[in-house]
């Protein structure tokens, strides 16, 4: 017998589910509002939660996010039961953290079978952290930092590190790793339902054991994944991984927003010049508007040129925010780029890999 929480504002459906669960021998808790459901779940975590999406006080997406955000309920299996039945709705539900999805109308038998199947599933494996590196100003070194950070994490933690290049205009992560990818995320464009086998089949392995989901090597018309697809990719790749590092595109496109929403941490990269600081200020404002919590955002001040530029204090003063990480200029970077070998993979001591290794160490511990 399992303890099952059902959150749905339709009293008729609740009654039907209640009878069905009782006949199956389960203990059932039936609630008609999202807020009440979250409170119930946190007070006394159920063995499984069935959640509707379209509820008046709080959407099912928010219910799932709150349940997942609480340590007491982070592992509770969640089944979405909704009249929003399109494949994009499935993607969105899974991206929020739900485990499975059933479209209404559904027969009691179908639902009972799904619940039994979910209760029989083995406990979930731990998910890795998703970190997105972003700058809405090009040329500040996001790809260089992302590639070196993934390399440093690979050397510190082992092979479960995946790098995702979301550039829609010929991604340069592959170039920095001297990889010629045969498969890129372009193959996912016409795939409304992403599954683990499909996404993982597109990974290219670098010789040091880093996994890369590469961007199209040439600019392509309409090469854009949906927000839900990016969230699904992040969810799939973080399953069983230690870290997923995303090199986000320099525009607030659906792909970028999908990556930001799926991320545990956002590193906003900027350079010490007025234009970059201005862009960073605007980006911080936009991220708040998108509902990305400020606690998840950290500033990374990169120095890709030898000129000193603005001081760290001036940048912090301009943004009214602390710079968490700083990466100094490294004269060896042009050579590393030409050779296709990130500095963080070399044994040499130089400013960029030293700084990136420190960032990797700090990320492994909670910031």
């Amino acid at each position, binding site marked *: 017998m399992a303890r099952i929480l059902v959150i749905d*504002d339709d009293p008729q459906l609740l009654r039907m589910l209640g009878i069905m669960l009782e006949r199956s021998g389960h203990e059932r808790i039936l609630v008609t509002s999202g807020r009440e459901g979250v409170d119930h779940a946190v007070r006394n975590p159920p063995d499984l939660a069935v959640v509707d*999406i*379209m509820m*008046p006080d709080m*959407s099912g*997406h928010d219910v799932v996010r709150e349940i997942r955000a609480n340590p007491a309920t982070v592992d509770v299996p969640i089944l979405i039961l909704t*009249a*929003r*039945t*399109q*494949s*994009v*709705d499935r*993607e*969105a*539900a899974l*991206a929020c953290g739900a485990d499975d999805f059933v*479209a*209404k*109308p559904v027969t009691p038998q179908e639902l009972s079978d799904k619940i039994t199947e979910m209760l029989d599933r083995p406990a979930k494996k731990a998910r890795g952290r998703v970190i997105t590196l972003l700058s809405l100003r090009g040329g500040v070194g996001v790809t260089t930092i992302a590639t070196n950070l993934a390399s440093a994490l690979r050397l510190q933690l082992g092979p479960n590190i995946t790098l995702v290049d979301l550039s829609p205009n010929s991604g340069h992560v592959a170039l920095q790793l001297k990889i010629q990818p045969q498969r890129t995320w372009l193959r*996912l*464009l*016409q*795939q*409304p339902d992403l599954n683990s086998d499909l996404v993982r089949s597109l990974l290219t392995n670098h010789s040091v054991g880093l996994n890369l989901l590469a961007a199209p090597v040439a600019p392509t018309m*309409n090469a*854009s*994944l*949906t*927000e*839900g*697809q990016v969230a699904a990719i992040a969810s799939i790749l973080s399953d069983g991984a230690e870290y997923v590092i995303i090199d986000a595109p320099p525009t607030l496109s*659906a792909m970028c*927003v999908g990556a930001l929403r799926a991320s545990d941490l956002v590193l906003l990269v900027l350079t010490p010049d007025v234009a970059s600081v201005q862009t960073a200020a605007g980006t911080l404002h936009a991220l708040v508007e998108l509902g990305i919590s400020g606690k998840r955002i950290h500033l990374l001040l990169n120095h890709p040129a030898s000129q000193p530029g603005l001081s760290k204090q001036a940048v912090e003063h301009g943004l009214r925010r602390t710079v968490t990480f700083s990466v100094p200029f490294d004269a060896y970077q042009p050579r590393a780029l030409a050779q296709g070998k990130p500095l963080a993979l070399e044994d040499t001591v130089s400013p960029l890999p030293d700084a990136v290794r420190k960032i990797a160490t700090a990320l492994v511990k909670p910031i």
Partner: protein
Amino acid sequence: MKHPQAKNTITTDFVTVSYRISCRLAVPVGGLFALLIDPLNSYLELQDVYISRVNAPGTIVAHREQAALRKDSVLFCVLTRREDGDPPKGTGFFLRPVSRPALMTLPSFEIRGQVEAEGRATPRDILVQTSNRYVPIYDATATYALNPAISFEGQLMLVNRDQLEALFMPED
């Protein structure tokens, strides 16, 4: 306020040029089709309305208990169950409707599915011979032209004829 002859409540998606509107609404005996072609109402009264942008249709950007939707602005509506909106069929003896594959283009969308037409009706016949403002297309998939990864599927879609750009059907 419910439609005076409302008998049933259904859940559906209305798609406009920029938004996906998921809602419940009360429909009369003839289903959603009857409500859409009702000449006495230019608006639909929606309940429990969830709004998403068409380019991110899985993400809910707003929710309202009630809304009024201008029928003119609807490109098409998506029904997962045919019986929630199927138009009444004629009882012709000699010319029974047959299903034929069709492609419809609308602003930002292309819809593939089956239309029911009598005999050897041409695309023009199908559009001209009906006075109804909504054209049913069955087992349909609507693909967003600006991002073909985004699509909607339904057993039935009711397409606003005023928004229809072209109807294509294969030669017999």
